């Protein structure tokens, strides 16, 4: 059955690259067209497989950047010592083909029925699945209030900066820039800590639902700060990836 997607079975399929857009010097969004792709949920990911000429294969999971109902796209950060991301961010061109399978995951997802208020916490490219949730919310016309706390190294490293700058009804975006700040910066300039959580997070009495995504140390720091602030662990959903910028 090679090449045919069987409903309910996870199979590799060929996807064609539609466009590539540079988000930052290190980060690129790649739109993909896969004929047998089933629609995804906000927060899910896709496995990408590359095969070298000698047959060597490498697989990586990438969060889906687009909302359900939008064409499939992923946002990839280049890791200098990576096997897959340098190819995706530097070599890949429109019209190229890569193998994908998915959508994958049922834990780190937000459906409208999950409600809110939502507290979204992103470290570096951990913004990607949260951006899918924001777009999903907007496309649905949902009025669930959202606070996004987004930790980046510098202003130049902020992914989807223009999109997040554009005011969205009921969405408050708070940045923290941990390494370098532009002249006149008045926002946070440190890693997320207990004090910042206390200032930004919804009060527990509001019944918030929190999603934290980023490098492991970011997610651990954020999750423990939320628990100390009184959030029940069952209201905190986490997703960790290999060490990168926050």
């Amino acid at each position, binding site marked *: 059955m090679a090449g045919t997607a069987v409903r309910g079975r996870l199979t590799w399929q060929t996807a064609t690259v539609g466009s590539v857009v540079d988000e930052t010097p290190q980060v690129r969004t790649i739109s993909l067209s896969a004929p047998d792709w089933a629609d995804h949920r906000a927060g899910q990911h896709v*496995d990408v497989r590359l095969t070298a000429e000698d047959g060597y294969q490498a697989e990586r999971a990438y969060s889906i950047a687009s909302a359900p109902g939008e064409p499939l796209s992923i946002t990839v950060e280049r890791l200098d010592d990576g096997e897959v991301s340098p190819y995706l961010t530097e070599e890949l061109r429109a019209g190229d083909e890569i193998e994908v399978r998915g959508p994958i995951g049922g834990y780190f997802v937000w459906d409208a029925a999950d409600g809110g208020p939502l507290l979204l916490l992103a470290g570096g490219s951990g913004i990607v699945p949260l951006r899918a949730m924001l777009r999903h919310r907007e496309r649905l016309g949902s009025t669930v209030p959202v606070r996004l706390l987004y930790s980046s190294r510098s202003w130049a490293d902020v992914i989807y900066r223009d999109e997040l700058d554009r005011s969205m009804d009921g969405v408050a975006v708070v940045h923290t820039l941990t390494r370098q700040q532009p002249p006149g910066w008045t926002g946070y300039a440190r890693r997320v800590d207990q004090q910042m959580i206390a200032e930004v997070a919804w009060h527990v009495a509001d019944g918030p639902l929190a999603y934290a995504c980023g490098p492991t140390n970011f997610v651990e720091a954020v999750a423990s700060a939320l628990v100390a602030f009184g959030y029940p662990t069952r209201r905190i959903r986490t997703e960790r990836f290999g060490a990168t910028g926050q």
Partner: protein
Amino acid sequence: MEPLETGVLDGNAIGGLLLEVFGTEMTVAVGTCGSCGTASQVAELAVYQPGLGTVVRCRHCESVLMVFVRARGVTCVDLWGLASLA
């Protein structure tokens, strides 16, 4: 639940592998550690991928719960460390 060290992944990262092996979405399934009895969703377990395969450990006592090794297109699965997975 013990915090994870830098570079350690969680069960979200192996959603595709688990879907391939079990034929259904498993990251929201609950695994119970055969050593200490701690129950947690697969997405919250500690995942190590040293290159030869995938090792999943309990976040409470660090016991090995699941091991996956792929060789010649076949995935070998060891669930010996789990008391249950549902």
